[in-house]
Structure formats: structure tokens, C-alpha cells
């Protein structure tokens, strides 16, 4: 058998084994992801907050996703939206990210790294605490953020998710 032919056969055999391995991995990972999505690994222990003057009382999860990924920049009334995040290691950020954005905090950070270094956009500012978010939202009419369930809302008010 010519050497090149046997080399080709060996390559195809290796490739077939790798593709099988890949398929098995994909099935396992997809099952794990689906199970996590259905089970709701991270309970929604956060509240969305907006400025008291904001006329909206509720918003869809899809709308909030577009807002925090900066695909949408205006409220229905034309006011510019100013989304504000919390620090990546905070539990409220994790809960918000998994429940609203349907991505892990790390996946969202990757999304923003791509946007930042390709010159497309910059992420929402990240604040240190619920109080900082409430204070920011209370002083910016177009702002929207999220805080822990027990946080005092002050000049902000809750925005429910449809």
C-alpha cells in the first residue's frame, strides 16, 4: 500500500475518532446546559430599579437583555437609557446575568471584551454596591440597574419583569 494512501487512511481514522469525541462532548454539554436552564440554578434574587420619574412600570426580559448588551439605547419615550451593572464577583450580578441575559457573567465579560477592543462599544459602568446603584439610578432619569431583593430603593423604584 503506498505510504501516502496509508497516511490518508490514518488521518481519516483519527479525524473520525476526534469527530466522535466532539459529538459526545457536545451532547453532554448541551444536556448539562439545558438542565441548568430548566432547573434555574440561580434563583432570581434581584430587583430591577429605575428612576422614580420613569413612566414604565414593567419591561420584558428580552428588552432588558437588549438594554444591558446595548442593542437598545432609548426608552419608549425617547429618553436615553443608562444601564448600570454591579461588580462581576457580586452574587446579584450573577443572578441577573443568568436569569435575564441567559449567559454567565464570564460570557458577558467576553462579549464586552470583543466590543471594547474592536471599538464597537463599552460596557455599562460597574458599581460596588446596591446603595451605589440606587444612588446612580436616583440621580439619572434614564438609568436602569438591579439590586438585591432587600435593598432600600430611596429615589429609585422597582421595574417589574414581564
Amino acid at each position, binding site marked *: 500500500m503506498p505510504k*501516502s494512501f496509508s*497516511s490518508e487512511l490514518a*488521518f481519516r481514522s*483519527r*479525524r473520525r475518532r*476526534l*469527530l466522535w469525541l*466532539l459529538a459526545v*462532548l*457536545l451532547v453532554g*454539554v*448541551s444536556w*448539562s*446546559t439545558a438542565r*441548568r*436552564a430548566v432547573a434555574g440554578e440561580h434563583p432570581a434574587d434581584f430587583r430591577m430599579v429605575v428612576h422614580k420619574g420613569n413612566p414604565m412600570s414593567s419591561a420584558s426580559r*428580552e428588552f432588558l*437583555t*437588549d438594554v444591558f448588551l446595548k*442593542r*437598545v*439605547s*432609548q426608552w419608549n419615550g425617547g429618553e*436615553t437609557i443608562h444601564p*448600570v451593572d454591579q461588580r*462581576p*464577583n457580586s452574587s446579584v450580578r450573577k443572578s441577573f446575568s*443568568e436569569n435575564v*441575559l*441567559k*449567559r*454567565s457573567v*464570564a*460570557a458577558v*465579560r*467576553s*462579549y464586552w*471584551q*470583543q466590543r*471594547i*477592543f*474592536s*471599538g*464597537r462599544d*463599552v460596557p455599562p*459602568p460597574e*458599581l*460596588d454596591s446596591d446603595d*451605589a446603584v440606587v444612588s*446612580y439610578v436616583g440621580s439619572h432619569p434614564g438609568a436602569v440597574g438591579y439590586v438585591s431583593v432587600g435593598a432600600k430603593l430611596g429615589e429609585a423604584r422597582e421595574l417589574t419583569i414581564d
Partner: protein
Amino acid sequence: MRRTGLLLFSCSSLLWASAAGAQDAPSSVQIHGFVSQGFIKTTENNYLAQSKRGSFDFSEVGINFTDALTDKFRVGIQLFAHELGPLGKYAPQFDWYYLDYRFTDWFGVRGGRTKLPWGLYNEANDVDAGRVPILLPQSLYPVANREFLFAQNGGEIYGDISLAAAGLLEYRAYGGTIFLNGVDTSAQLKDYGAPYMFGGRLMWLPFEGLQLGGSAQKLRFDIDYVPTPDQLAVYQMQGLVPANFSGTVSVKIPIALWVTSIEYQAHDLLLAAEYGRSYIEEKINLLIPTPSMVNQGGYGMASYRVNSWFTPGVYYSALFPDIHHSQHNRASYQHDVALTLRYDLTANWLVKLEQHYMHGTAGLTTALNDDKPLNTLTKDWGVFLVKTTAYF
């Protein structure tokens, strides 16, 4: 010395900006940066660098500033330097700079030097922190093309159109030209450039996590050179020189490219696949037929974030540089199976290990391989890469 100075400057900038970024109050000006150092080693064949013996000529550094002057008007600039084997050599360049006015969500205008929206990842080709693989699939994102197909100087319109229950449509359309920083010049070379480039991308996001669509691009490279007397004598002997020959050989290379893309992202899982072709002609003012080639490539990729610090990924990529004139030898294809392990050591520092199993020699260059023809290089070979990146 110059490299050391640049790296020291970059590191001090990183530290200074990290400290600045630690302040609580959201600031209008955002500063971000990154520094990467890689190592590449191949079992056979030199790939991207002098990789057979192992090469550290694989590093990048960048810093950018973005400011929202008003709610709708933004400006930004990124300074970038890199080295990848013979490319880059740490020559600092403005990677991108722009003025951006977004009238509404469905219509915005940008002008300046902007990254080209081609496929899923062309704009983020430099962004090591934003992806799992060290090398994106080279069938569609060859790093050696960085100087040509990453950014353009011109204008762009863009927008996100809401389709209500049907999701979102994201469009980008651009036109301008490109600077050819990486072209070797010689006494014979009289002029070169790209008189035009235009294209666009349309992506449909039917629901969060899924996006699918396509990109297309058209451009032309022009090269004028004066042949040496010896070359001219050969052309004349072969009867290639037309009667009205001016003494300058003009080569025009029109290129058309398209790619279709699909990506699905949910929680920690990412799946992506793309397939594309490019059509290249070479029109010369000599009496020879117009050569043309059709390049074809595609890949499938998957990654899964196991926990906050560990993400493995895998892809299979296939490249066929000239499907219509293929000689059916090892230089007419490149099959690449890549496995990556990404470790996020801290929120701003990562390390990646990557192994490629390569079959075929397409995508290699003769210049890095002692001018040997590609079909004489080793057919089955491996690439091992390590890369670390700090970013903020």
C-alpha cells in the same frame, strides 16, 4: 531596547489605568488595554514564525480610549503594536479610531478607521480575552492577513432593527479603502494600494443567544512595478509584452468574499460554524491569460465554560486555497483540529494552551520554509501554542 521601552510603557499604562478604573464613579472616558505574550512550536514546518525551533515572536499590546461626548456621539481610538514572526515588528499603529453618531437604534453613522464586520469574529481577531482559541480558525481568519483585512479607512452605517417577536436584525454597511502596512517594498515596486473596499454584514438574532447571517466584501489591490532588464528580456522572449507597453507592469487584483455564519450561545456553552469563499483574479497588462482562483474554507467550533476559571474549546477547520485548479496534493488543503484549554487565573489575567493537529500544507508560506514548494513540506504536523494575556 525599543521593544523593552514599549512594553514598559504599556505595563505602566496598564497599572495606571487599572488604578484609575478602580474608582467608583462612572466616568465618561473609558480606558482599556491588553498585553499578550505567546509561544509557538511546531513538530514540522515553520508556521507563522520560526516555529520548528520554538518562537516567542508572538506578542501584542494595545490601549484604547473611548469617550461619550453626548448620549449619541462617541469618539474612540486604539493604539496597537504586535509581532508575529516576520509581521508587525512592534511598529505602533492606530488600530482603529472613529467618530460615531447614533441617531437612533436602527441607524448610526461612523467615520474613521474601523474594524471590518466580516463573519462572526473578524473584528475581534486581536481580542484574545474575548474568545477561547488562541488562533481563530485559519480557514476564515488567517492572522497573516491582519494588515489587509482587519480594518478600513472610510465610513460605515449600522443599526439594530427590532422585528418584535421575530427578534432583531443587525446590519452594517461600509465603504472606503485600506492602508497596506505590511507590504514589503523594493526598488522595483513603484506603487501599490487598494483603491476601494466595500461590503456589509446582516445578522438575524431570532432569540437571545442565536445569531445567523452573512457577510460580503469586495475590494481591489493595485500593484505597479518596473521589471528589471533581465525580467523584461524574459517577458519579451516569451512574447508577453504588448506593443504599447509603458515600462511598468500593472497588476490589478479584484477580490470578492462572502461568508455565512451561525452562532449559538447559552449560559456557558458556545457553538459556532461558518463557511465562506473568496474569488480572486489577477489582471496584468502583459499578454497572458487572467489567472483566477476560488478559495474555500469553513469550520465548526464549540467551547464550554466548566467553571469560572476553566474553559475548554475545540474546533475543526478546513481550508482549500484553489478549488478549481487543485493539484490534489498536500498543498491544496489544510485540515486543522484544534483543542484549547483556557484558564482565567484572575478577572484580568488568563493563560491558554492549544494543540493543533494539521493535515496538509495549505496556509503555510514558502518564505518561512527555506523557499521550499509547499507540496514538498511535511503533510501531517502539529502546532503547540501557549499564550498569556493581561487586560482591563
